[in-house]
């Protein structure tokens, strides 16, 4: 029997894959959650949260058909070139999302902070 299977990858899946790859780029110290994510994190800490979810703080993703828009907000330290780091994150996240989900991702990176010590 040969059934057609159609897979739809959800926004949260893309966000978690993107966060996983972004955190592994050398020079990324942390991903910075936006306000909604930070408050959800607080709620989770108070209510007792299932820690088995892969964290996606600092990443938002929207899937449109065969492509995805991903935004990543990162923190780095002085000594890493912000331009090169942003490009490396875009490259690695897009490659990681593509490899895992098959989606073409347009990755927007924002360097939110540079730690100075």
């Amino acid at each position, binding site marked *: 029997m040969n059934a057609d299977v159609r897979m739809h990858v959800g926004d949260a899946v893309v966000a978690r894959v993107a966060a996983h790859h972004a955190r592994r780029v050398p020079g990324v110290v942390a991903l910075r959650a936006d306000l909604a994510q930070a408050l959800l994190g607080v709620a989770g800490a108070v209510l007792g949260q299932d820690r088995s979810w892969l964290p996606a703080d600092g990443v938002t993703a929207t899937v449109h058909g065969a492509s995805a828009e991903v935004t990543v907000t990162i923190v780095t330290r002085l*000594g890493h070139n912000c331009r090169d780091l942003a490009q490396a994150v*875009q490259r690695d996240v897009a490659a990681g999302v593509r490899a895992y989900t098959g989606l073409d991702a347009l990755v927007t990176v924002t360097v939110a902070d540079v730690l100075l010590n």
Partner: protein
Amino acid sequence: MAVNPGDPVPTLACGRDAARVWDRAEAGVAPDVHERDCPHCRAAFADAQGLEAVVHRMAAQRLEPPDTVLDRVMHAVVAEFRPYEVLSLPSPHGPARMSTPAAAAVLRRVVDGMGGLRARSCRIEQDGAQGHAVDVRITVAARFGVDLASVTARVRQMVIAAGEQALGVPVRRVDIEVVDLFEADPFGEGGP
């Protein structure tokens, strides 16, 4: 003070070009006879090595910042960027941006690390018409006795080099204002 090629470049008080001294310091060339004895060239040499140390030594260190709940929320509040608060970074892979206050903090930090100087305010502006190039306005306090003519040349060179090496944006224009003097501090030079 514009950084356009072809413009006259302010020199160190001894008449040498700070950028030349930097090039030699970065290439690891030993200082020549003049540079060994000239305080202005020695300061410029130290600037170049200072940036090198900051950029490469700190990059090699490993550090995880403490991340308390309060930190996370406060960071999130300030991380809601408005358009004028981000610089656009050159990238072939899509939109890449950087917080302008974070970029200004980087430039202030490297200028603070220069001997005899403390950075005060730093404004960075990027008007989209000029690609990614930025204009920097920085105010500094100098230690009493430091040669003021050389200060401009040194700060200018430091800002241009840090813009390229630490931020990754070309610096088109640097305006430097020496707004204050301080005395040598027996307890060492802290930041402001």
